[in-house]
C-alpha cells in the first residue's frame, strides 16, 4: 500500500536565545490511506511542531527545516511555494487544534469562519457555501445548525466549538485530518464524544487521521498505529496493538505504567521519574537515559540503532532484549 503521506527524516529546528532547539530531529513516519495514526509523547516532545511542519505553519524564522522531506501526492511539501501550500491547507490536509476556545476567531460569526473555506478552495457562492456548511454541521452532530451559524464563538460551549472546528476542517473533504490534542481542553464526557466523532469521520469519509495526544489512554482504542516521541525523536513505532502488548522502549513502558488500565492488573500507577529534557540541551546518547531504569554505559554516549521487534515495530533502544 502506498502511504498517503510520508514523512522522511524531518528536521525542524528553531534558533532561540537558549541555543538551537531540535524540536523534530530526524522524524520519519507514514500515514496510510484510511488509517488513524497516533502520535504520543510528553509535553514538549515535538508533536505539535511535527504536525505544523506538515502544513508548513512553522514560523520561519525562528524555525527552519534542516532536512528531510514530506511526500504527499507525489510532491515534497517542504519544497512547495506558499501558493501551492495554500491550496493544500484546509483543502487536502486540515488541522484541528488543542484549544477550541482560542482557535476560533471571536470577532467573526461562525458562518463567516466556515463559509470562507469553501469560498477560498471551491470558489463557491456564499449561499451555496452556507447550505454546504449546514449539511456538514448536521454530520458532525450540531443541532440547530442554521441558528449556530449566526452565532459568535463565545456563545458556544467548548464541545460545540470543537465540533465547529471539525466541521470546518472537513468542509473540503480532506484526505488527511491532523487533530492536535483535540480533547485536552474539554470535559471528560465531551472528550469521549469528540473522539467518537473523529472515529466515525474516519470510517464514513475514509479520512486518514493523525491523532496527537500526550495520553496513551486516549489513543489506545482509536488508532491503528502509534508513534511515540521523546525529546524531538521517535523512540518507538508500530501497530498500536503490538506496542500495548509488547512495549519495546523503556519510555513507552513507563508511559504505559503511568496510565490506569483495565486489561492488566496493576499494583500502582508509576509516574515517570524526572522531567523531559529541555530541547536546547538534550542529553548525549539516548535522550531518555537519565530517566531510564535500564540505562547502561553505552546509552550515555551513543544514540541507539533501530531495533526491529517485528518488520514494522521498531524501537530505538540498546537494551530491547532486557525489557
Amino acid at each position, binding site marked *: 500500500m502506498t502511504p498517503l503521506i510520508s514523512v522522511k527524516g524531518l528536521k525542524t529546528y528553531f534558533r532561540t536565545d537558549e541555543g538551537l532547539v531540535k524540536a523534530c530531529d530526524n522524524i520519519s513516519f507514514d500515514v496510510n490511506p484510511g488509517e488513524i495514526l497516533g502520535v504520543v509523547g510528553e509535553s514538549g516532545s515535538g508533536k505539535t511542531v511535527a504536525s505544523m511542519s506538515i*502544513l508548513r*505553519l512553522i514560523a520561519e524564522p525562528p524555525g527552519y527545516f534542516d532536512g528531510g522531506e514530506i511526500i504527499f501526492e507525489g510532491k515534497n511539501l517542504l519544497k512547495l511555494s506558499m501558493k501551492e*501550500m*495554500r*491550496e*493544500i*491547507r*484546509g*483543502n487536502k490536509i*486540515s*488541522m484541528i*487544534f488543542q*484549544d477550541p476556545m*482560542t*482557535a*476560533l*476567531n*471571536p*470577532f*467573526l*460569526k461562525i458562518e*463567516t469562519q466556515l463559509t*470562507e*473555506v469553501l469560498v*477560498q*478552495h471551491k470558489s463557491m457562492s456564499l449561499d451555496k457555501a452556507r447550505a454546504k456548511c449546514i449539511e456538514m454541521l448536521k454530520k458532525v452532530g450540531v443541532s440547530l445548525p442554521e441558528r449556530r451559524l449566526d452565532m*459568535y464563538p*463565545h456563545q458556544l460551549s467548548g464541545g460545540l466549538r470543537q465540533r465547529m*472546528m471539525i466541521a*470546518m476542517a472537513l468542509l473540503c473533504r480532506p484526505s488527511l485530518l491532523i487533530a492536535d490534542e483535540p480533547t485536552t481542553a474539554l470535559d471528560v464526557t465531551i472528550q469521549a464524544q469528540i473522539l467518537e466523532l473523529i472515529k466515525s469521520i474516519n470510517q464514513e469519509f475514509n479520512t486518514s487521521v493523525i491523532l496527537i495526544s500526550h495520553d496513551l489512554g486516549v489513543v489506545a482504542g482509536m488508532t491503528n498505529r502509534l508513534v511515540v516521541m521523546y525529546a524531538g525523536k521517535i523512540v518507538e513505532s508500530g501497530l498500536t496493538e503490538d506496542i500495548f502488548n509488547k512495549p519495546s522502549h523503556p519510555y513507552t513502558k513507563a508511559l504505559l505504567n503511568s496510565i490506569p488500565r483495565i486489561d492488566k492488573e496493576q499494583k500502582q500507577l508509576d509516574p515517570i521519574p524526572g522531567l523531559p529534557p529541555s530541547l536546547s540541551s538534550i542529553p548525549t546518547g539516548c535522550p531518555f537515559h537519565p530517566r531510564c531504569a535500564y540505562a547502561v554505559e553505552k546509552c550515555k554516549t551513543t544514540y541507539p540503532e533501530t531495533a526491529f521487534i517485528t518488520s514494522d515495530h521498531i524501537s530505538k533502544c540498546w537494551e530491547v532484549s532486557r525489557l
Partner: protein
Amino acid sequence: MSLFIAKRALSCLITIFIIITASFFTVRLAPGSPFSSERDIPPEVLNNLKAKYGLDQPIEKQFVHYLENLLQGDLGLSTKYPRSVNEIIAISLPKTLQLGTIAVLWALLIGISAGVFAAIRQNTAWDYSFMAIAMIGISVPSFVLGPILILVFSLYLYWFPPGGWGSFEHMILPGITLGTVYAAYIARLTRAGMLEIIRTDFVRTAKAKGLKESYIIWKHVMKGGLIPTITYLGPAIASMMTGSVVVEKIFNTPGIGPYFVDAAFNRDYFLIMGIVIVYSTFLLGMNFLVDLLYGYLDPRIRYD
C-alpha cells in the same frame, strides 16, 4: 442597546454639568477680573460694566442665571470683544473644525496604513524605518514642525500658503502639523494591536485553512487589531477637532484656539466657559462614539 445609549447620554449630561459648575467657580476664584487690565476706570463706569454683564449679582444668582441662559443656547457676552460668545464660536469654530478634519484624515490615513504595513512586515527594514519615523513624529513638537513645513513647502517650494485662511490650500500645512503627532501614535498603536492579533491561535487557524494572507489581515486581524487604536481615537479626534492654540497661532488661522488663550488672559468669563463647554462636549461625544464602535468591533462586549 438603547438602554445603554440612554444611560451613557445621561452620564454625559451629568459630567458636563459638573464640568460647567467646576469651571464656572474656578474661573471666578482666579485672581483678577475682566476689567482689571483697563486702568483708570471710574467706579461708576465699572459698576455700569458689572451690571451689564450681571457681575454685580451674588455669585449663586449669577450661576443660576448662566444655566438658565445656557439651556436656551445663550452662552452670554464676551467682556473683551464686542460680540456674544455664540457669535465668536459660530465664526471661529467651523474653521477649527475644517482644519481638524484635515488633521484627522491625515492622522488616520498615515497612522493606520503605516501601522498595518509595519505589522505585516514585522522586523523588516520597512517596519524599522516606519517606527523610527513615528518616533520622530512623536518627539518633534508642533512649534518646530510647523515652521519647518512653512520653510520647505511655502517659502522654498511655493506649494502652499504659509498661513492665513480662505482656501483649501490654507488648511493643508496646519492640518498636517496638527495631525502628525497623532499619526505617529496611531501608527505605533496600530502596529502593536495588529501584532497582538497576528500571534493568536485563531490567526494560525486561518492560515491552516489555506486563506490568503491579505484576506487574513483584512478579515481576521483588522477588527481586533484596531481596538487599541479606536480607544485612542476618541480623545485624539476630539483634541484634533478642537484644534491647537500653537498651530493656529503659527499659521495665523482664525480658529477658536487663540480665543481660548486670550479669554484666559483677559478673564473673559463667558468666553472661557463657552469654549470649555465646546471642548468637553466634543471629548465626551467622541468617547461615547468609541464605546459604540467597540460593540460593533467586538461581539463579546454586551451593553448592559
